[in-house]
């Protein structure tokens, strides 16, 4: 009979970290959109 530790299956991989790249992309896009919005709004007010 195998020891208990040997009966356990393959070790599970740790949970993947949050995709920082995606959040950076969304954040950069949001900042860019706000900047463009401010530019276009300012131009119309003039």
């Amino acid at each position, binding site marked *: 009979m195998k020891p208990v530790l040997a009966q356990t299956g393959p070790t599970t991989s740790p949970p993947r970290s949050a995709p920082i790249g995606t959040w950076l992309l969304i954040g950069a896009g949001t900042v860019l*959109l706000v900047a463009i919005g401010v530019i*276009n709004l300012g131009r119309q007010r003039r």
Partner: protein
Amino acid sequence: LIRNPIAWCAWALATLGAAFIDRNPFLQALLLLVLINVWLPYRHGRPTYLRVSLALAAIPVLFSVGLSRFGSHAIFTLPGWPIVGGPLTWDALAFGANTGLALMLTIAVFGIVQSTVRSADLVSLLPRPLYRLGTVFALSIAFTPKAIASFHSIQEARALRSQRTGWRGVPAVVVPLLLSTLEQALQYGESLDARGYGNQRRSRYRPIAWSVADAIATLFAALSIALLIAFPAAPYDAYDSLVPKTPSGISAIAVLSLAAPAVLAALSGARR
């Protein structure tokens, strides 16, 4: 600025696809920001459609919260009243808000296209067999705001004569409204006849031209559609998991590509 109706149609198609397919709340918020940015440089007139879209967005929220009893995150529980009794859940609220936001985005897209593209240009894009049908359809749509304006002017005239103007006075408004609409229809018919409608080949007063900005906006719209189809975003179901998953970077790029008209407007102004 983008003037070509084909470029606007491509943009609208891509944006509608994103609004229908991307139900992730983060992407929806990003798309809302994109639409506000595109609306800002191209807006003119009163944005009535914004009010309509806000009202329509509230309906799914009310229905979902009021009638759905699914979900495990309760806000509070109503006593056992028929139909509405039971727990009101955050899951139902999130589901309704998700659906309402998709509706709002869809109406906003149509509103932006309506304020940027003339109906005559859209009709001129139709193939020859559909041209007459398209003209009749565009004219019938154009009748709605005319009929509303006639209704308001009749109501004002009645108010000046100290007659009823509320809902009780509506039956008395129907006949003059019908007569004024018929008169407008006859005027439309005469003007179409005077312009030789249906008698000769179509001619264009202003031929539709392509600029660099139109081509760039169309390319970005095509890129967005291609990314949406090739890499569909993970679906969001509030009842399954209340907290939405992080969207993929490709989906974010597909949504950000739709901001091309706003970016081009900002750049064209900077060059002036």
